């Protein structure tokens, strides 16, 4: 994908905290107009990635461009065009929601109080309430409402769904969908709520041990990662293709997951006495099948044959 078509482009972005490699040569492409879900286990580097984009963390090596701006050299320009919501971000607790919005409005050259009030009114948050008196879900919604006040072209939601009750989570998703309706806006969302991310994301990236292990449209991921089940009662077990993961060999049944499925792949596995079944996987299944072998193996994550 050309850099022009991307809201975020990183090149070998690397961040080391002491001995820990938080990001390991991440070259990500987040297409404009997409809702991109960055997934990964705890400690995979998701938040460090987001903080690099906002220049809150300095990369050790590599570079990142957001909406065409270098995040280190043009950090002010980036901040003007990006909205950011993080889980449990500290807010000025003593402020009312209205004061918080007014304070943030002062930080930007343009501001749409209409957009902010639109969300607050829809979800029933009284702007006269103090932030400290809001529930966890309401805080997340208030933070989201204020984060879109300057009508950002890119919205970064870092674990913004984490720990929310189902109703607040739906309201956050609904607001993200409304925000997206504006032409060309991009959303990067990190987290572990896979079912929610599967609803709204059209792109996914898997970050494992600081490495971008997979990146593609969600539909491509689902088309390429399949579980193959072969029943072979009374016949010899099939040869398991190289690169298959989660291989389970039984006397009469063999199963494994492939990351490069095509209809031609199953043919050579069939034969007399063998029955081949290609099983579709949910995003959660895919995540577990791809991530688990990496997490249990020592050393850095190894990328699949083709990404």
């Amino acid at each position: 994908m050309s850099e022009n078509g991307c809201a975020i482009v990183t090149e070998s972005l690397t961040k080391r905290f002491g001995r820990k490699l938080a990001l390991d040569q991440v070259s990500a492409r987040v297409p404009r107009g997409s809702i991109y879900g960055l997934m990964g286990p705890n400690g995979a580097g998701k938040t460090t990635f987001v903080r690099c984009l906002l220049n809150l963390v300095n990369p050790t090596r590599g570079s990142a461009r957001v909406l065409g701006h270098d995040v280190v050299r043009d950090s002010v320009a980036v901040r003007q065009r990006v909205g950011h919501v993080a889980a449990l971000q500290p807010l000025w607790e003593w402020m009312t929601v209205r004061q918080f919005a007014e304070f943030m409005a002062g930080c930007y050259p343009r501001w749409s109080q209409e957009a902010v009030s639109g969300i607050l009114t829809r979800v029933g948050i009284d702007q006269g309430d103090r932030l400290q008196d809001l529930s966890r879900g309401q805080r997340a919604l208030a933070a989201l409402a204020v984060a879109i006040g300057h009508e950002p072209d890119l919205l970064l939601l870092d674990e913004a769904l984490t720990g929310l009750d189902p109703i607040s989570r739906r309201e956050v998703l609904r607001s993200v969908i409304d925000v997206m309706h504006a032409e060309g806006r991009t959303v990067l969302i990190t987290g572990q709520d896979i079912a929610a991310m599967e609803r709204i994301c059209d792109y996914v990236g898997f970050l494992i041990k600081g490495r971008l292990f997979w990146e593609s449209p969600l539909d491509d991921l689902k088309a390429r990662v399949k579980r193959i089940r072969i029943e072979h009662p009374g016949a010899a077990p099939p040869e398991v293709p190289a690169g298959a993961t989660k291989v389970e060999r039984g006397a009469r049944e063999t199963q494994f997951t492939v990351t490069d499925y095509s209809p031609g792949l199953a043919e050579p596995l069939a034969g007399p006495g063998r029955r081949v079944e290609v099983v579709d996987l949910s995003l959660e299944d895919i995540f577990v099948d791809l991530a688990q072998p990496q997490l249990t193996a020592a050393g850095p994550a190894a990328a699949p044959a083709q990404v």
Partner: protein
Amino acid sequence: MFNSINPKSAVPIYRQIMDQIRRGVAAGTLAPGDQLPSVRELAAQLLINPNTAARVYRDLERDGLLETRRGQGTYISADASAMAESERKRIIAERLEEVAREVRAFALSEEEALRLFRDILNRRGGRKDQR
């Protein structure tokens, strides 16, 4: 009008919505001239990516099931009722395809398979469709 979708299903969300509309046309619950929600409404209602909603409409329009009237919205097309019959057959054929695979895998004879199917068709007040 739309059932909720199941994001945990291995069937892509795009397919799930597409199938619901096709099924509605086949069953007659969606008739020519019926207006569908806008892309934005559909996305908000089902909590899905607006790009996905837009793609469903675009592809069904290409297939002739939907038509978009400029500035007015998206409607079930006039041709849809003519397509209902073929949609019904297509949906059944898809299901039977799966069954046929199992029949071959278990090496059941054609006569046995057809007899089973006939028995099921003729059973009155049988079990409800589990799907």
